[in-house]
């Protein structure tokens, strides 16, 4: 059986949602640029309602060149768009809002964290200018409940947010698609419990259980906030994140845990020059040594150093958003000076075609009615023959539309092939 490391690499968290910092920022920039382009196009081809009567008469008017009539209304100047950095700030704000909302609703740690990660993942490939974050927050929290606990009463849920069920459901599929239909998020909470149990089992620690309790409480607090507010989940494994949080809470304990895991390293130096040498040791002893040598080779110093490096880097990342920063994100002057202007800016550059989720849903439903029902594929022999049962998205324009589908994954190549990868997880057992 494959090691736990190998199994982690099969998880969707690793396959689809792990990136190097460079990859991640490139993706975000790409998303931002694509959204700017699309929104520009859409703003220019769908003039605002106030000017639509004029444009109906001349649908192909050069909307993006200065209007010779000098009529300012019909020449919508493109708004100023959010930069990738501004988008990131706003996403951060809405993640903190997600955590705040789920805290008020007394949701379990897993639900809170899953909701935050759903929102975060969604806005890697979707711009905050395209889909409304406030609405998507509510959708993500709803769907996180569904994924983590199996069910949630929608009408009760929507009452809390003063929304209609329709408004929540309108974004659900959108969210699923943005999550690439992978709903499992692996969290570090269980790893922390496991680590504490392991530490508590060490003889010398038993006199110091208070220290363990304090460290666990602090580390848990960190895990409830810091990894979700940073990009830790995209770069590190749950156990690395746990160790980093523990290290922030009590560095000594984290180091102790790593030391225990790599206790074979101590033997590495000695055994290196005695492979195969019997040295008069008993047969049993010898086998044991050999087994230890093997273990040392597998979980030896090089791997320990790698782990230490990853944990340190993750620790740095988490330390930028310690739980105390919660207040920063709800601080009135901060919101007034940092967030409100961005939200105002956002409202000016939002995607006219996508922003209203309920309307978007209605248009999609309408498209469905207008187009051929692919479900009848079995009966529509003609369509089946040309091997094109799926048809196009838009019925009559299907043929043309297909051209727009490039044979390329917008994420780039499958992630598993990417060589720049985060560290392997030698602490699989603590996942």
């Amino acid at each position, binding site marked *: 059986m494959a090691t736990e490391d190998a199994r982690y690499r*099969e998880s969707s968290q690793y396959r689809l949602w792990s990136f190097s910092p460079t990859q991640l920022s490139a993706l975000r920039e790409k998303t931002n640029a694509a959204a700017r382009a699309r929104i520009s196009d859409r703003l220019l081809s769908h003039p605002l309602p106030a000017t639509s009567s004029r444009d109906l008469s001349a649908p192909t008017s050069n909307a*993006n060149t200065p209007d010779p009539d000098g009529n300012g209304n019909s020449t919508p100047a493109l708004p100023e768009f959010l930069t990738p950095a501004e988008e990131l700030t706003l996403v951060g704000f809405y993640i903190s809002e997600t955590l705040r909302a789920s805290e008020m609703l007394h949701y379990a740690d897993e639900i809170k964290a899953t909701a935050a990660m759903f929102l975060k993942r969604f806005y890697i490939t979707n711009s905050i200018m395209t889909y409304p974050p406030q609405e998507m927050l509510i959708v993500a929290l709803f769907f996180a409940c569904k994924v983590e606990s199996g069910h949630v009463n929608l009408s009760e849920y929507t009452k809390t947010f003063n929304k209609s069920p329709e408004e929540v459901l309108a974004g*659900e599929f959108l969210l699923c698609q943005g999550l690439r239909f992978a709903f499992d998020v692996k969290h570090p909470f269980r790893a922390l419990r496991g680590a504490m149990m392991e530490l508590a089992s060490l003889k010398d620690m038993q006199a110091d259980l208070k220290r363990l309790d304090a460290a666990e409480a602090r580390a848990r607090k960190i895990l409830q906030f810091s990894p979700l507010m940073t990009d830790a989940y995209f770069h590190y494994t749950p156990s690395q994140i746990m160790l980093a949080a523990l290290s922030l809470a009590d560095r000594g304990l984290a180091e102790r845990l790593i030391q225990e895991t790599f206790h074979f390293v101590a033997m590495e130096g000695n055994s290196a020059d005695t492979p195969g040498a019997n040295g008069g040791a008993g047969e049993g002893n010898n086998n044991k040594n050999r087994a230890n040598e093997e273990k040392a080779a597998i979980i030896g110093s090089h791997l320990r150093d790698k782990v230490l490096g990853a944990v340190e880097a993750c620790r740095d990342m988490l330390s930028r958003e310690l739980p105390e920063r919660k207040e920063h994100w709800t601080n009135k002057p901060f919101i007034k000076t940092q967030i409100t202007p961005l939200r105002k800016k956002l409202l000016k550059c939002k995607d006219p075609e996508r922003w209203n989720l309920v309307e978007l849903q209605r248009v999609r439903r309408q498209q*469905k009615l207008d187009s051929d029902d692919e479900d009848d594929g079995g009966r529509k022999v003609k369509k089946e023959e040309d091997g094109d049962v799926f048809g196009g998205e838009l019925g009559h324009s299907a043929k043309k539309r297909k051209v727009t589908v490039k044979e390329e994954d917008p994420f780039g190549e499958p992630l598993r092939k990417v060589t720049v990868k985060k560290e392997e997880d030698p602490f699989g057992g603590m996942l």
Partner: protein
Amino acid sequence: MAVSPLVFPTSSSLTSPLKRQPSQQTTTTTGNNSSNGTPNFGGFGAPLSAAKAILSNNNSHQDPSSSFSSSASTPSPSLTLDPIEQMNELEKRKYVKGRKLGEGTYANVYLGHSRSDPSVHVAIKKIKVQAQYNDGLAPDAVRELKHLQELRGHPNIIQLYSVFSSKDQNLNLVLEYLPLGDLEMLIKDVDRVRYGAGDIKAWMGMLTRAVWFCHENYVLHRDIKPNNLLIAADGEVKLADFGLARGFCDPGWRMTANVITRWYRPPELLFGARHYSGAVDIWSVGMVFAELIIRTAYLPGNTEVEQIALICKQIGTPTEDNWPGVTQLREYTVPSEITPVWGKEAYMGRFGAVGSEGVDLLVRTLALDPKKRITAREMLEHKWWRTEPKPTRKEDLPKKSGGGEEKMGADLKRRNGVLEEENRGSKVARKLDFGAMK
């Protein structure tokens, strides 16, 4: 501004829409060539302008009949595709959907094949929007997707190749094609299908490995039964239908007791336990094992009450002696007549076909107390696998000819019957039921 280069080409298409086509072709080709591992900047921009061109074409050739939007403020119904939607289109276009294999309330199942290699068959399970479930994407679909995405690469678990959405946001799961039906078919066809101890050992081996893999990945299947064990063309048994699966629970969190099809449901669930473990699946495995041997359901209760009565009679009455704490379970009720737990010898007559070791394994899976029940891992370490006869090679396993495809269709489309709302009744009512059964 970075936007302008993307805007201007499009505006040219407004004036001469037809000229747009060749340039689309070129963007498509360049896209094909960019296959290095790094995210491609051009990837987003190019097809977008192309998509925009299509949109513009629609506008300029505006046909009043095709335009249904009544209010001026409604954006054009022709939505362009976002990058994520383009990716969905790509995924969708990798497969060709063929004839329908089965139609159900929960899903329809189609035969399909890979567009690039028509010899590669797949099953496409299209999840229906359920009329009776108003809260969006059905929980079964969410659970199935969640777990199949993670349980990859095991030969005894049905593989999920891809997911895409079709029009109106129906989910399509592209699954491994398993044309030879399921274990239920083989068990039931007593007249035409003959099999022996080596065959049972092979099937049980594959089932046990599947369950072990689920548990090793902290997933409870919660619906193991013969018709969820599908058979691949090469004879490999695959555990399917994860619509009731869930991850292991943290201690202290409650789970529903209303899972697992009744005949395969363990006593702790029948007694309403809200905290349970992989042992629930093991009981089901034991029931499948027994059924494989006697070729009929071992404990086919018609109601929960009957199910408990059957367990008490055939296996033994759960009591504080054989299962400390059982009487504390919410819905613990047993017939007043206590049957002592039967020993291995009692099973030899009816189940002896698998030998003494086989019966030993069976008895261990049917321990009443879930804490004493054998685990999947311990099952794999059992002596039975290494005693004669050897498990049959999968290629040589008995097959049933014909009907397999339809069976797969029927198995995959099924709504998990287990969420059936059974009238559990109060303890008192149950006691009365036991009385009436005598």
